[in-house]
């Protein structure tokens, strides 16, 4: 049994008596201390997947099927009170925009201490000690002084460090980081990512990193999931996905990296854009944007095919694999 097992997770949003599926058939495993990247364009359902793990989907959305097993316990079935004991404790989250994540009217200290107090009986002075120690861990200069400061007195990078410190307060086993560096300066991004990686490694914390930056994924994670229109379309070991992507969408994402283009050349891009949840194409949802589209692609949704360590949902990949198999059988 893995530390975290997500099985056939489905999230729907009920809008005007119509039910839109924001996530379908999401399944993956994560071991303790393992790092997983979830990539995809905006609207692929990456953040919804992250929030669904903590059962934090806000109305009108809700988990309509599947399981989220954390150490064998199904989080999606817990009462809101039991769920509260998990959040910020065993599993904590880091949000996208540090400018918006901290409450502007409370001091850093207050926002850290309340989190400790929510999860265990602890005196204020002990909580303060732990908070300061965590601030030191994320390399905040003069942490004692920061405790009494308000968020607006700190820079964006500093705030994201504090948010990471808050995420670490209860020594979680899993951190879900939803695009933790997207809103930061490029110069700060690498620092924050390195800090997060170091802390996860030294404390044996599992990490789910949601991002659209494939470069970061390749440096930080061991496993990668590629999402498109609310579904997983390819998953496997990160190095295989980066170096030998099978799905045309993953290939497109990798080709779109600026490093793949010579100076002076036009940057590659995937034509078209992500469909809205209201009109997802039939068959493979990527088919209108795919360069290798077959007749089958518009008719039937592809099943997962094993290719090396990866599983890929693509008719073309399956056809190629089948041909290979047939070929070797002939020999």
């Amino acid at each position, binding site marked *: 049994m893995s530390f975290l097992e997500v099985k056939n997770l489905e999230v729907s949003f009920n809008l005007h008596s119509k039910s839109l599926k924001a996530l379908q058939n999401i399944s993956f495993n994560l071991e303790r201390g393992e790092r997983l990247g979830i990539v995809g364009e905006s609207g692929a359902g990456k953040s919804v997947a992250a929030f669904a793990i903590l059962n934090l989907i806000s109305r009108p959305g809700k988990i309509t099927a599947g399981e989220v097993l954390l150490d064998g316990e199904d989080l999606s079935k817990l009462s*809101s009170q039991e769920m509260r004991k998990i959040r910020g404790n065993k599993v904590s989250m880091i949000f996208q925009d540090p400018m918006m994540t901290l*409450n502007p*009217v409370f001091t850093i200290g207050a926002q850290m201490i309340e989190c400790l107090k929510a999860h265990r009986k602890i005196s204020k002075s002990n909580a303060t000690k732990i908070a300061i120690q965590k601030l030191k861990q994320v390399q905040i200069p003069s942490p004692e002084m920061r405790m009494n400061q308000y968020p*607006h007195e700190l820079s964006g990078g500093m705030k994201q460090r504090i948010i990471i410190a808050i995420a670490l307060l209860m020594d979680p086993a899993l951190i879900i980081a939803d695009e933790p560096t997207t809103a930061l300066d490029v110069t700060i991004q690498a620092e924050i990512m390195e800090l997060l990686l170091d802390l996860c490694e030294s404390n044996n914390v599992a990490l789910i990193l949601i991002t659209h930056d494939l470069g970061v994924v390749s440096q930080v994670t061991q496993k990668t999931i590629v999402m498109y229109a609310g579904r997983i379309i390819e998953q496997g070991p990160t190095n295989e996905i980066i170096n030998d992507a099978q799905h045309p969408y993953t290939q497109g994402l990798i080709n779109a990296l600026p490093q793949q283009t010579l100076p002076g050349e036009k940057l590659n891009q995937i034509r078209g854009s992500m469909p809205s949840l209201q009109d997802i194409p039939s068959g493979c949802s990527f088919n209108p944007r795919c360069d290798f589209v077959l007749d089958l692609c518009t008719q039937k949704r592809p099943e997962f095919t094993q290719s090396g360590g990866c599983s890929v949902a693509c008719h073309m990949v399956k056809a190629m694999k089948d041909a290979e198999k047939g070929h070797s059988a002939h020999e």
Partner: protein
Amino acid sequence: MIAFLINRLFQAAIVMFVISLLSFSIQDNLGDPLRELVGQSVSEADRMELREELGLNDSFLTQYFRFAGKAIQGDLGTSYFFKEPALEVILKKLPATLELVFGATVLIIVISIPVGVYSAINPSSLFSKIAMGISIIGISVPVFLTAIIFIYIFSVELGWLPSFGRGVTEHVFGTWETGFFNLDGLLHLLLPCISLASIMLPLFIRLIRAEMMEVLQSEYIKFAWAKGLSPRRIWFMHALKNTMLPVITVGGVQIGTMVAYTILTETVFQWPGMGFLFLEAVNRVDTPLIVAYLIVVGAIFVITNTIVDLIYGLVNPTVKLVGEK
């Protein structure tokens, strides 16, 4: 803090100067004060003499500076009707009005915060829908009509509550005459306070609900949920404090406006306060009293807004009061 207050005092002086200039300039346009003073039987020659004696023939500016010089020393002229210093007449009626405004403010705070918060947390609940419906009615019905309906229902038909006056009052702290410390006084306060609150209350319920709903969507509230905090702490600490910031600002202005609304409420309930007195003064063309009223109300506006700014500075750490380091 001190620097802020000094700064505020300076601003207040300018505001009060403008108010005094405006209210004084009304004086010349409200009919002939002599007619109120002496009646019909005095001859034209005597009138001219009296006019000269009172300085009513001087230029506007001369008259204004004479008025302002006295006003600074607390002398706003003598009421034609009461034959007493106008300021004293007003201040004697001030406690009654302030009690009315205070009662209405307490009602607004005690009702609007829980109702607004509840209907923001449960926007589609039946209670929330009913509250929103009633608040629309409350906003649209004018105070005097609400007051008359209340009198009809609770005084005339049911006979539960008195329909006019302050009832039994006691003297506390020397001169302060109050109805707060006995049942009869409180019962007399109830209907006028509810009527006065009926305009502002729905406004505040809607304001708090709208602000709170917006705050509940914010990232820091989502983060608070992700930290595993209790719903009570998230709603009443994290969300409410941010919700109250704009509400405090609006509230400060509205308390001042409510002092003005007391004119209607006091008239309907025959409440012996400043507003009632003001309306009488207008009917009698008692100009010194009108001027004194306007200046006192202006001062109340300035004072409440200063207090509200101080409170806002305490609640919102991103705001620094002028002059603060």
